[in-house]
């Protein structure tokens, strides 16, 4: 038996490797709920060095920003003071509106929307192959993160978790070709599906030729895909090519966040987790 194995050792190893690769390729086409043990192990093993590198780089960057690159700081300070004063004025008005909204909701017996719970995470790694758009974050199943949870920032939608290990997770960005988000144009309520284009842009598909969409329109989530809550900002329309004789417009959307320079994100947790 051993001599037979020794004789065909090369053939057995090659067949094993090719077989494993084919099996994992065919299994990747199925939507499974859990991340495989092998993938979890790889992510867990790579997490400490990635976290260490990320820490060192962010410290070096913050050192540069705080102590060396201080050009225009005074002007920026002035601008920030002005915008703070403006925001304080707006906050007073918003508080009044919130109180009025709560009163009207009570009046109509509508269910109050409970505030979403979320946890913050840092980006510790980016896609190791250039043609895909994913990032690694430093929070995983130990922090109550599960597959398909929404990842956002204060500026809008980032993506969703696709692989979760103990202390790290992989996030599929909205710009990836495999990402689809149910979205609508805020001004006209025209509904479509936001798909990544593999670059820094997205395309809002299935916008009917009868719908009115213009450059600069804000695109938000509909809350129908079951991943993102309703009304989260995604980005703005940058290009609209009218359908002509076709059924749908070609609508290009620029995400509200520069996903290439993203450093921190928030993960929305299901209520009560």
């Amino acid at each position, binding site marked *: 038996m051993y001599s037979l194995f020794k004789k065909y*050792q*090369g053939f*057995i*190893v*090659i067949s094993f*490797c*090719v077989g*494993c*690769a*084919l*099996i*994992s*390729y*065919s*299994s*990747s*086409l199925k939507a499974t709920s859990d991340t495989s043990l*092998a*993938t979890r192990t*790889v*992510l867990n093993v*790579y997490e400490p*060095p*990635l976290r260490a*590198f*990320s820490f060192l*780089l962010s410290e070096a960057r913050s050192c540069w920003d705080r102590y060396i690159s201080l050009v225009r700081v005074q002007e920026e300070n002035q601008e920030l003071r002005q915008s703070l004063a403006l925001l304080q004025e707006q906050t007073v008005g918003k508080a009044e509106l919130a109180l009025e909204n709560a009163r009207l909701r009570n009046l109509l017996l509508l269910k109050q929307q409970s505030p979403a719970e979320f946890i913050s995470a840092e980006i*510790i*790694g*980016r*896609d*190791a*192959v*250039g*043609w*895909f*758009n*994913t990032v*690694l974050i430093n929070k995983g199943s130990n922090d109550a993160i599960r597959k398909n949870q929404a990842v956002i920032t204060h500026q809008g939608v980032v993506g969703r978790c*696709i*692989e979760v290990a103990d202390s790290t997770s*992989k996030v*599929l960005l909205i710009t*990836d*070709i*495999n990402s689809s988000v149910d979205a609508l144009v805020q001004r006209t309520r025209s509904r479509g599906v936001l798909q990544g*284009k*593999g*670059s820094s842009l997205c*395309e809002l598909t299935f916008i009917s030729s009868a719908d009115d969409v213009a450059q600069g329109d804000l695109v938000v989530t509909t809350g129908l895909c079951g991943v993102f809550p309703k009304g989260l900002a995604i980005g703005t329309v940058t290009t609209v090519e009218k359908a002509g004789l076709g059924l749908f417009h070609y609508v290009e959307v620029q995400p509200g966040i520069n996903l*290439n*320079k993203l450093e921190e994100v928030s993960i929305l947790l299901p209520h009560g987790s």
Partner: protein
Amino acid sequence: MKHAFFLLFTGLLLILFQALPWNFLFPEMATLNLSFIIVAMAGFHGNSPGSWLLAYLLGYVLESLSGSPRGLISLTNLLALVIIRALAGFILLERMLSQVLTLFPLCAAAEMVLLAASGVTAHHSLNALMAGALLHSGIITLLSIPLLHYYNKTVRVPER
């Protein structure tokens, strides 16, 4: 043994480098698949079962740290190894020039496979994407020269 450890360690280190510092230092620049150099190096120097396992392992790790479909990079690596071993029957792949001349087209082919799998071809000009893939392959090949030189002179020679 030294040969296998060198390749494994360097491959895993290059993948780590691909996943973080490269992207943070140059956020607007595309990531290069540097671990492919290691797969090619494993093929240049013999047909041991370890080379096949290494190609598969590096592919799997890379898939785990990227959005690539599972199994695709492993299969690409294994296919590259098959081609290298087939070529080794015709040309002597222990010289730097033949190694570099083999690496470039193979790397370009691997990039094209990933390009097609990523689906970006549906939204962008194919010519521009192919030019990008060729540019990546050129840079990877250039970066491989010092590594191949070091490996051929320092690690591989004492094992012969």
